[in-house]
């Protein structure tokens, strides 16, 4: 049991495409933007600050900014950002960032993509509560869900 998993989100996706193809969808700014929902100009090089505009309906007014950390072709791509920075007029600059890491591995029939976003422990709750709404659900039920997160069973 990982007791620190509230700090991170981890996703594994088997993609039926070769590693080189998946890499291009990650490392090419145009391709990346098309599935991530942003318009921006690359290139993605370590240390670069890449800015753009969110293209999701309803969020078009929001700027998008990531700082590239590591670029290891066809293997690893990582960057930092301010997650859920969806309130206009708020300066997120001083707040801690989360780290997003994409890792590629050959797998049967394609490529295994692992995405880990970590560092949520440091983000003020009020900033993360973009979609927070009142909830009358039973308290016990909520704790069960929290436990699933904490034990990594979510």
């Amino acid at each position, binding site marked *: 049991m990982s007791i620190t998993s*509230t700090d991170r989100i981890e996703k594994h996706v088997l993609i039926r495409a070769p590693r080189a193809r998946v890499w291009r969808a990650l490392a090419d700014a145009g391709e990346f933007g098309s599935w991530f929902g942003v318009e921006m100009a690359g290139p993605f090089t370590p240390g670069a600050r890449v800015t753009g505009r969110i293209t999701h309906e309803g969020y078009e007014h929001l700027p998008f900014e990531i700082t590239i950390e590591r670029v290891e072709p066809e293997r690893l791509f990582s960057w930092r950002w301010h997650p859920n920075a969806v309130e206009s007029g708020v300066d997120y600059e001083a707040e801690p960032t989360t780290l997003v890491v994409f890792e590629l591995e050959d797998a049967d029939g394609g490529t295994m993509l692992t995405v880990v976003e970590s560092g949520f*422990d440091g983000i003020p709750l009020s900033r993360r509560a973009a979609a927070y709404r009142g909830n009358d659900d039973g308290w016990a039920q909520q704790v069960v869900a929290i436990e699933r997160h904490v034990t990594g069973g979510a």
Partner: protein
Amino acid sequence: MSPAAPDVAPVFAALGDETRLRLVTRLSAEGPLSIARLTAGGAITRQAVTKHLRVLADAGLARSSQLGRERIWELEPRPLLTARECLDQVSAQWDEALGRLRRLVED
């Protein structure tokens, strides 16, 4: 954005400990409890339980009140609800984005 959402960073950190998580689970299942009840039958000392409860209280997750000679602890649900909903939301956003990525490269 709820104006009542507490501006506290350490909620997740406070939960990142097995003993505190167990205390949260017990307070959730059994309702408000005294330190004596929380300590009874466990291998952990009264001092240690108190220390962990203070961490939870500092994170806004629990509160205590004096009842006669006993100090009673109970949960403060809102920060937990907020934390959980935030993670759920970020997780769902990743699921959607990765679904779009897969469709893009598998075509």
